[in-house]
């Protein structure tokens, strides 16, 4: 019962915060709304018994990416006031609602093979075995390391003063 209450609370707050991201006039307030949405997503992970991912979500999204976004907003604040829409606003709204309808229809009409097994609870050890263990995703982990290195170098090169 507590899980349901937590889910509905987090879902409503998360959707309102996501609406705030696209509807708020002030870009900085939109960024704060995005941070709130990231936090509620971390709570959603907790209700899905994904404890490690919830911690990662708070560390990376709430901690790092939001700081990046807010810094970028501060550095580019004087060029554009507010967050106006372009001329594609009505078609974009139509596409988004169409997408929601299609996915909702597909979701409710599919017979999911729900497994009744209760999930592994401290997921950290199981995830580490999956990522680094025998027959796991070790190649993808190394590719991710190379990708992060390339992204950091690219970001430094792009913003460096000539």
């Amino acid at each position: 019962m507590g899980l349901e209450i937590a889910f509905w609370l987090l879902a409503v707050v998360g959707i309102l915060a996501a609406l705030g991201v696209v509807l708020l006039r002030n870009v900085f307030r939109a960024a704060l709304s995005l941070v709130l949405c990231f936090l509620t997503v971390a709570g959603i992970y907790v209700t899905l018994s994904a404890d490690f991912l919830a911690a990662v979500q708070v560390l990376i999204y709430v901690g790092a990416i939001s700081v990046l976004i807010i810094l970028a907003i501060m550095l580019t604040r004087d060029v554009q006031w507010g967050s106006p829409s372009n001329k594609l606003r009505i078609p974009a709204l139509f596409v988004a609602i169409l997408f929601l309808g299609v996915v909702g229809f597909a979701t409710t009409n599919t017979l999911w093979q729900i497994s009744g097994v209760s999930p592994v609870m401290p997921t950290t050890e199981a995830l580490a075995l999956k990522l680094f263990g025998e027959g796991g995703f070790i190649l993808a982990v190394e590719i991710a390391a190379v990708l992060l290195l390339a992204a950091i170098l690219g970001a430094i090169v792009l913003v460096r003063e000539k």
Partner: protein
Amino acid sequence: MSLGLEHYLILSAILFSIGLYGALAKRNAIIILMSIELMLNAVNIAMVAFSRYIVPLLLTGQVFAIFIIVVAAAEAAVGLAIILAIYRSRETIDATKIDLMKW
């Protein structure tokens, strides 16, 4: 009515649609990037929900979610760097005015 996979998938679809609208309809490049982060988060919720309800012992969806977070972090860093570089050279972050490569 108890909580099921469909609840999480519908929540994920709603968040994704909001992000899709923001990415298509906004002019501020930073808002577009924020909307893309929102869409990636929605996909992560769907991944973790599938992992929890369909293969609870394998955790494959959570591994995928970790890789999505890695790619999202790289994308945010490079995207914001590109926006700052454009701001420096063209004095605008309006996505409708960054049209040098448009036909």
